[in-house]
């Protein structure tokens, strides 16, 4: 193998939340940064998100949650990844998430949470520094 493969990221909306302004901006910013982006579309269940992530062999899952359901949805996605033996897929995300909820989400395994006001370059830089292509086989 010569070139390291490009990062593959699943960018997703989970639950019933239809606010997709942020997720679309992130998806475009990731694409412009040279990552491969798989966008789930709206209103996906945690099961579908995890299944897609495994099928598409992504390096990380990036979820956008503005509905207030983050304390349920992030841990649910992480639990399903563990059940499927895919806990090495990193999960990060953003949205309207109060500061005080972040420590518990991180303890549950969410690697990073970006709150309103984060710039796309800050998020892209974080991904470059922290998400590595998964070793396969």
């Amino acid at each position, binding site marked *: 193998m010569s070139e390291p493969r490009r990062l593959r990221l699943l960018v997703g909306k989970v639950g019933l939340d239809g606010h997709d*302004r942020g997720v679309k901006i992130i998806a475009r910013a990731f694409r412009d940064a040279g990552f491969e982006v798989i966008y789930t579309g709206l209103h996906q269940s945690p099961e579908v998100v995890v299944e897609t992530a495994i099928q598409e062999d992504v390096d990380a899952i990036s979820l956008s949650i503005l509905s207030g359901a983050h*304390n349920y949805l992030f841990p649910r996605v992480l639990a399903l990844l563990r059940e499927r033996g895919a806990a090495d897929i990193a999960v990060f995300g953003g949205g309207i998430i109060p500061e005080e909820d972040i420590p518990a989400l991180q303890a549950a395994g969410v690697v990073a949470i970006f709150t*309103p006001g984060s710039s796309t370059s800050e998020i892209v830089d974080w991904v470059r520094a922290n998400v590595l292509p998964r070793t396969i086989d």
Partner: protein
Amino acid sequence: MGFDEREHEFTTVSGMPIERLYSGDDLGPGWNERERIGAPGEFPFTRGIHATMYRGRPWTMRQFAGFGTATETNRRFRYLLEQGQTGLSTAFDLPTLMGRDSDDALARGEVGREGVAIDTLADMELLFDGIPLDRVSTSMTINAPAAVLFAMYLAVAERQSVPLEALGGTLQNDILKEYIAQKEWIYPPRPSLRIITDLLAYAAAHVPRWNTISISGYHIREAGSTAVQELAFTLADGLAYVQAGLDAGLDVDTFAPRLSFFFNSHNDFFEEIAKMRAARRMWAHFLRERFGAQNPRSWMLRFHTQTAGCSLTAQQPYNNIVRVTIQALAGVLGGTQSLHTDSYDEALALPSDEAVTIALRTQQILAEESGVTSTVDPLGGSYFVEALTDRMEREALEYIRRIDAMGGMIAAIEAGFPQKEIADASYRYQREVDEGRKTIVGVNRYRSASETPPALLRIGEETEREQLERLEQVKRRRDPAHVRTTLERLARAGEDRTNLIPPMLEAVRAYATVGEVCQALVPVFGTYQETSVL
């Protein structure tokens, strides 16, 4: 003499260029005051829809509220009424907005979070408990299942012995902007339009004071559109509803007077005012000339304004009080009929009581201390404001021409056109912010090192459990055979193309759930899957 200019080009928050100075030359040689702006209360209503405007009656102060269970929201409603609020505005939770029950698998974690959870008429009875429906006007922000919630509201009125003719309020019921921006849908666009025209016909006959559709630019703007796009896509949605009503055999003057609008008020003060003034003029011309409406009330664009949620910052949240004041003032000078002012903590969570009170006080200060209500349209005739109004209109008409050429808004939505235009504008703006070409105080300039976060409203985990228990109780108490019969009747009305509202009313009276009523029509109407536009 003077300093060199700070920028090569000055632009609005939407990117529209602004000149150093405006004069009569900017209005063009044919600019005719009577024709372009007229008198307030007269065609084309550029200066406002009433001759006396706020000298007659101030705008309705209408704070959007809803969270947790119906009982909790009922308490917030009563609090707001005691504080001097003059109308109610209901926020529903995501499962309700999607026409799903609290016990639906996808509803997990979402029950009562972003609004109040309503599953059956029993919840609606609690929501309006002790609130006389003939004496308040109620706005309900609900779209895909709007007809179901409307039927529930009518059923509550029946129980309070309030005649339907006495009910006043607004149903958002604007499904087209859901496909464009807010993304809470059930059926595909065309059958959804049929439910709406059934509701238009039913309300015209039975609930004549009800505002049947609040054609909404708010969410389009929140999704990242420019001011011109908000104006153009909202009016194009309105044109599609009027056309659908005509196609269903309704006389335009029976339903057009009950259509109202809902605009966003963002940070760029004059751009917002120009947008609102242009909207009134454009709608008046469309209704009179394109649709041949005779009743002056059909020509009038009445609207609600909400300050821009997307402009609020999580950083230095108290700065938002100032943003909201400027945005609210733009809504007032733009001639709004009602106003919601956002609370300063809304980039962090649903608003606390304290934050909501400051937001309401902001409106009261504008109405009763600032003096801006003492004369009608104080900005009318300003070279800048009139030139900007003309430019808004010109650019929005160009969009509408393109949408007409595609076959109207439904075809444009199916082609992903407005969705793509908004996504492009939203990405462009984000780049400008990231690169520091547009300033957001406290975010990309003038940052503070440390901040004390304000106390936030928390929605406890027990809300979901309580709501699920109540839903189960209602299901146990109701007559299942009767529920089934009413749902079958509804599905038949779907097939027969008879008006859907009476059978829907039967079903909700039998305590059928929102989800059951919506699902009853899925075999007839199908469901909607979006082709995502990135």
